[in-house]
């Protein structure tokens, strides 16, 4: 049986639903030593801002039960250096490149998008309105329905390419944000970004990460992520890219059943950077075994 693994995110067709999450693959060069990028659905760059960002001081990460907290603080090379130094490497691959954009002001989102949209290698944008680790922008936008609506609307008028809004789980009703994104022209949403968390050293009584709070990721957040995906899926008609603690192909299937059209692999890349390629193969085997001709038929196939 020939299994069709392809999925659509708005006008973007991916050869399979496996995407590499922003902030977990840098700009692609290191992970390409472990996994064949040409076999993946898409890769999403580390968040890019208009100017380079140094990021937060150490300690930036700490492990927690079945998860990790990070407060990298959007360290990145900036749009200009990205285009000059990072794009040439990424051009060599036949995999859709999605740029994640982070900004402190609505104008900065627009300016980044305007500059990057000129580069033909970039196939879509993921707008990061939900970074929990920076003072300006980030979550301040992600928690504000009007800001999400406005950012989506302004970025929409800056590019013809698909726009994915990366939603924060740190809200009481995520579907409202997905709806605001859809109504203002977003092609898809990705859910979820990390959950705000913290951890203390009981001897020093100091937080384990310098930023005090960080973003929780890894298998610990999977049930939360699935519930958020399901909530959006039930209430808003928009493609969802599921993210949150995926460790294997079974988790991918679960995210698709809950409503995802595609998924992003994040924390797993740190542990087993060869996993994404293997998961694609295992998904194909699963579909064959279950006689699923189109993997896209799994999306929102839940029986409640």
């Amino acid at each position, binding site marked *: 049986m020939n299994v069709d693994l392809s999925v659509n995110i708005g006008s973007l067709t991916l050869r399979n639903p496996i995407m590499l999450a922003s*902030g*977990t*693959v*840098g700009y692609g060069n*290191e*992970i390409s*030593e*472990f996994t064949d990028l040409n076999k993946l659905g898409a890769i999403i760059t*580390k968040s890019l801002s208009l100017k*380079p960002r*140094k*990021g*937060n*001081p*150490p*300690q*930036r*990460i*700490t*492990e927690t*039960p*079945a*998860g*990790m907290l*990070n407060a*990298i603080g959007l*360290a990145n090379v900036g749009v200009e250096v990205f285009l000059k130094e990072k794009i040439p490497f990424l051009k060599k691959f036949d995999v859709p490149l999605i740029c994640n954009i982070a900004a402190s002001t609505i104008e900065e989102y627009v300016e980044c998008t305007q500059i990057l949209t000129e580069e033909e290698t970039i196939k879509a944008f993921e707008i990061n309105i939900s970074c929990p680790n920076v003072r300006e922008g980030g979550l301040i936008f992600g928690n504000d329905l009007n800001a999400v609506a406005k950012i989506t609307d302004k970025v929409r008028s800056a590019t013809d390419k698909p726009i994915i809004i990366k939603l924060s789980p740190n809200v009481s009703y995520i579907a409202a944000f997905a709806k605001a994104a859809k109504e203002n022209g977003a092609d898809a949403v990705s859910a979820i970004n990390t959950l705000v968390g913290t951890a203390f050293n009981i001897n020093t009584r100091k937080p384990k990460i310098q930023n005090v709070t960080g973003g929780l990721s*890894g*298998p610990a957040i999977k049930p939360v992520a699935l519930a958020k995906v399901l909530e959006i899926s039930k209430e808003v008609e928009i493609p969802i890219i599921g993210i949150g603690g995926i*460790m294997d192909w079974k988790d991918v299937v679960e995210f698709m059943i809950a409503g995802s059209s595609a998924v992003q692999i994040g*924390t797993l*890349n*740190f*542990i*087993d*950077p*060869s996993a994404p390629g293997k998961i694609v193969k295992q998904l194909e085997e699963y579909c064959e075994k279950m006689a699923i001709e189109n993997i896209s038929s799994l999306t929102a196939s839940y029986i409640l």
Partner: protein
Amino acid sequence: MFIINAPVEEIIEIDHHIYLLKVNAPRITSIIKPGQFLNVRVSERVSPLLRRPFSVCDVDGEHLYLMFNILGEGTNILAHKLKGSEIDILGPLGNGFNIDGNYKTAVIVAGGLGAAPFPYFTRKLNGKKEILSFVGGKSKDDVLTYNLKNVKEATEDGSRGFRGNVVQLLEKNIESLKSKKIKIFACGPTLMLSALKSFCIKNDFDCEVSTECAMACGFGICQGCPIESTTEREKYLLVCKDGPVFNIKDIVI
């Protein structure tokens, strides 16, 4: 860098709660340099989740040795690995020590478990350079001298060797050190490295240090292990990729 499954050959307790993990890993031993490190997945389970970074302790033919103490759940699992079981190792990672050069004497300065990278370093330099080892710890149980040569010890409580810290011990030997063409290679706690930096600047000694930082991936994608550079203030260096070995003058410590 690559991922291998290496069979465990032995777990040796060399000293009070200090272990050596011996694995067969020819792909790694044929290329790894002293000061480089490996990121070890201690279990397939989701907790502990992340790999644990260890510097290469020693290499003997196809045998790779990692030194560790039991600090938490991950190292506890590692200490109880069974002979013949396989262990998932990602590496070699980072930049090792620059052991070539026109110095005559390699001066090792190690604090506590910072001694871990130096057995392999000593093996590589043996017969090529004179090697002097200055090893310190809080108390005699913290002084690790496994497979080191020409060792001088310092303990803060005076329970073994010189009473004081290892940099004070260097100060005590300053005349002898100044009479030789030395290069210092160091690894240890941050406080030791800060004191060592002042000592090296004051005496104009060339010094490379192996640093550490909490990290997730070990090869640059998580950006979790920044270290402040003295030359480029607008961005951080990464311990995993730009280090873990740095010239002591290049980092803020």
